[in-house]
């Protein structure tokens, strides 16, 4: 029933958080850093778009007689 998106919004936010922390701590090779930077920017953009499009979906679940 629940169609899980390949990567949930929460996972994306967590990943973005980790990327920023990693960059914050430094100690990353420059190549890795640039990759992380790009990934982070992408994630942030996706998250923003997701939030901007957010609207309440309501599903009424009917009673089943058992």
């Amino acid at each position: 029933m629940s169609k899980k998106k390949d990567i949930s919004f929460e996972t994306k936010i967590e990943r973005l958080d980790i990327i920023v922390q990693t960059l914050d701590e430094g100690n990353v090779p420059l190549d890795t850093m640039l990759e992380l930077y790009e990934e982070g920017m992408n994630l942030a953009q996706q998250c923003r778009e997701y939030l901007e499009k957010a609207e309440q979906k309501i599903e009424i679940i009917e009673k089943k007689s058992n």
Partner: protein
Amino acid sequence: MKQNKPIAIGVLTREISRLLEEGIGYVQVIGEISNYKHHSSGHRYFSLKDDNAQISGVMWKTRALSFVPRDGMKVIAGGVITIYPPQGKYQLDCTFMQPMGLGDLYMAFEEMKQRLEKEGLFDPIHKKKLLAIPTRVGIITSATGAALQDMLSTMKRRNPMCEVCVRPTLVQGDGAIEDIVNAITMLDSENLDCIIVGRGGGSIEDLWAFNTESVARSIFMARTPVISAVGHETDFTIADFVADMRAATPTAAAELVTPITLQQLMDYVITLQNRLPELAFTAINEQRRTIEQLLLRSGFRRVNEQLKVMEQSLDSHEIRMSLAIKRSIAAMKMSIDSKGNHCKSLYPLSPLKKGFALLEKGTKTLTAEDELSIGEELTLIRQHTKHTILIQSQ
């Protein structure tokens, strides 16, 4: 007061009030308190009931009470019957109230509560954590109550990206308990992030379904975190104790389930996004500084110095080399000169300069060994002149 003319309701009500007050006077009753409300005005409103009947009660804030009344308490209360004209309702205006021990209903409730507590149903160890950013939340409540609308509007305002699955149920009366239990079981299989079970405030009787063992057990069994949102602040139900989290009102439950609002999320994402370039620049600058510092390290400096030394030695070699070459060229020149002079000195005609002469016979130059006879003609060669000569004597 028999009259055939219509009279004002107020007049009639006043008459009823007078009859009740005078006809009954001060009276004491024994009953169980329910629906107790200590209003912010200080007045207390409640119902008193026994097995067969129920009466509304009021106790003004000016009347002293030696205890805190609670729903379910059995009390003895005394006062007079008055009318509340706007609702045409009669009530016991209490001047006195004392506890009579716990009511039967309440005792049964307490017994069950203690049993469940002993069993560990209320143990914090079983409380599941709620997600900070739920994506799908279930709601079990009456389809018609204000509670549902309160919850939906609160969630929409705070976090509209959260999907809501509503399973309407009866919340009181016949069949409510079974309906709630079924609803919890059903939504638990929906893979939701959280389930809110609740209803708006009501009397202890109205909330009774949430005080039953079967509802408590179904909440306990659910794998999904459950928030109970039953009634108002003062009403604690068994459901509240078993649930992973308790909200005082349905609106409060909707707030609990959306601890982070959409706006906060957006702000957070933007903060993270803004930090990225800054961090990248910092990191790049750091690497640059590292390189600069490495260049300043003695190792690199030594290489430079070594280069300079080598250069210098190269220079000195060059100088020495060119000096050496110059010297040997000069030496060679000198030896060539001396050899030239020597050669010059050996030139056969050079004695002619000093006045010596050469003798030729025909084309042959004569040496000291050649013999000459008288009458022979010879050529005498001097430096500048040639002469023919004749040998006259031996």
